[in-house]
């Protein structure tokens, strides 16, 4: 292999190591960005909606207690607004199904909420249910707890997935950084090896040739320099030897 190609290959290897590491780090960083967006889109929105649904459910429970104590107008107003808030949250989670098993959980919420709603939609004030705490504790409260539990389960599902995604992000960040570190260390080591080869196979032969020529000029001894490689330096040595031979012939003539 010619000297020019050898030196070029050294630089190409350095460039290749750093280039691949750079491209991979960029790719990983881009996917990290996409994953962060994914967490916000997929899980955080559902968690937020679930919180709103739980808050709405608690307001509905308070409204039922108001109806039981005979506060019809205030109770019904709260129920109406809380129901609307719950529906908004429900629509959000129904339109944001991203995890395995989430769809079934949303259906469970719907079923449990319908059962709960059937109970408080019926007239309470001025019926035998008014001030009937036994009815509240036997029917309303268990139904309320059931809906709340299903919403909490949905929130826990999204919470868990968000945690898992965040953990995988940590791994991805590691994967984005490591090739760079490896490339830097590899490049440093490679530079030392490259420098050694350039010294041994390029600089030293040139020094030996220079020394040989100087010796020849001073003492007239024949040029005796060993060049181990089959490259431009060997050609240079041959050219110098030819020149010296020609000069000797001319001097002899």
């Amino acid at each position, binding site marked *: 292999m010619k000297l020019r*190609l050898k030196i070029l*290959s050294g630089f190409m290897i350095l460039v290749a190591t750093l280039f691949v590491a750079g491209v991979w780090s960029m790719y990983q960083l881009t996917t990290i960005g996409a994953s962060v967006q994914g967490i916000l889109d997929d899980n955080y929105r559902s968690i937020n909606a679930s919180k709103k649904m739980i808050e709405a459910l608690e307001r509905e429970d308070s409204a039922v207690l108001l109806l039981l104590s005979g506060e019809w107008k205030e109770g019904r107003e709260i129920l109406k607004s809380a129901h609307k808030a719950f529906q908004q949250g429900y629509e959000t989670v129904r339109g944001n199904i991203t995890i395995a098993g989430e769809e079934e959980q949303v259906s469970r919420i719907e079923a449990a909420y319908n059962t709960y709603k059937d109970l408080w939609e019926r007239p309470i004030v001025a019926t035998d249910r008014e001030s009937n705490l036994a009815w509240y504790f036997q029917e309303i409260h268990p139904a309320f707890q059931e809906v709340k539990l299903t919403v909490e389960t949905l929130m826990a599902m999204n919470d868990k997935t968000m945690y898992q995604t965040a953990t995988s992000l940590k791994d991805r960040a590691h994967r984005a950084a490591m090739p760079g570190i490896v490339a830097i260390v590899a490049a440093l080591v490679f530079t030392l090896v490259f420098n050694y080869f350039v010294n041994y196979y390029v600089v030293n032969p040139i020094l030996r040739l220079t020394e040989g020529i100087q010796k020849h000029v001073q003492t007239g001894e024949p040029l005796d320099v060993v060049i181990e490689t089959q490259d431009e330096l060997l050609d240079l040595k041959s050219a110098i030897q030819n020149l010296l031979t020609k000069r000797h012939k001319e001097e002899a003539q």
Partner: protein
Amino acid sequence: MRLHVVFRYSGIVLILNAGFLLVSSAVSALEADTALFPLLYSAVVCALFGVFPLFFVPPTSDISGKEGLVIVVASWLLSCLVGLLPYVLWGGEFTFTKAWFESVSGFTTTGSTILSDIEALPLGLLFWRSTTHWIGGIGIIVFTLAVLPSSGRAGMILYRMEMSSVAVESFNYRTRKVLKILLFVYVGLTLLQTLSLLICGMGLFDAVTTAFATVATGGFSPRNLSVAHYGSLSIEVVIMVFMVLSGLHFGLLFAAVAERSGDLLRSPVARYYLLALMAGTLLITINVHGSVYATWSESLRRASFQVLSLGTSTGFATADSSVWPGFAQLLMIFFTLQCACAGSTSGGIKADRLVIFWKSVKRYLKKIQHPKAVVPVRMGGEVVGENLLEASLVYLSLYLGVVFVSSMILAFMDVDALTAFSGSAAAMGNVGPGFGKVGSMANFASLPDAGLWTLSVVMLLGRLEIFGLVLFVFMGRWK
């Protein structure tokens, strides 16, 4: 010493590693797992570093003994270094120290792991992990020389520098033929075991990786519960058979198969090795029966597997032997120290040296009785040379010394005595599991980082049979 020659030969070893990294990348690509880039990038870096010296350094087959030693040690260290790249690039449980430990454990065929959840690793990375065993099994240099077309005198020097001194003496062929025999037996055993495991119902990936780990007497399993995961008697029997075969002298195995020679059964070392394994199995079966296992069949099944696994320096497990009675544990520590025959892929003191040791003791007693008598030590009818005798006894003493010093270092780091001693013995013998916190169903993750570095050095000392690494460290004094 010509450093460029060292670069050239180490480069060839790196190219071999790059080839196997590429194969692992292909596995990763087929599975579309997350290890593809770490493996591919490691392969590229490894190949570039390996190819570059070939551009500059012209071929030479004339190397000195000193250069040969540096090439061997440098090749091992470089292989372990590039072996850790896929681990650190992938992440997970791997820190730099843990990746280095896993890599050294793989190449030295120790099989100790720091992983608490092996099955969480992508298949490409698991394949690379087993491949490190397979490359290191018959020796990185021997493997490289065996697959290279010809390396002349350099090949002979490198082969002698890497192989166990006892094994070098025991092969009666020229270097080139020894290399061919080693490769033939090694690849043959691997193919046969893979096929046998497939017939027993194991999946292809598990069969190949388990065969790599068995024939190299390594012990890395792709499963968290090691061989216990499969719960299959036929699989255990196949692995046991191949563990024993891999612990025998490959030259004798080759002669028994290719030349139909009876040397294998006539060899005093092979006979001692097989008898010791049988006696150990019998004693431990009796010891664990009733105290750990209710039936004789269960006791025999578990005891035989564990004894063969440690006695061949493999390190697979089908039971948690760290809960076995003290007698069984001590006997297994003996097998951890002894291991199998020279000329195999096994580590440890080796049965050959123990046979030589006992014969030397016998000779010494005879010489006390008859001070002027000339009593040669004979093995298989041939007189053992005084040099080999001395080397074996010095090695034995040094070996135990290293285990003791390593145990002391670990104990200084607040590691309990049983864990420190058995862990050190397992690392030195390239066995894998020890007892206590590093038992057959546990891992080495609980050890401090400094402890992992200590054991990494001990693993390399064991694999290079102490002298190689020691001479390398004191290279300056070698005139």
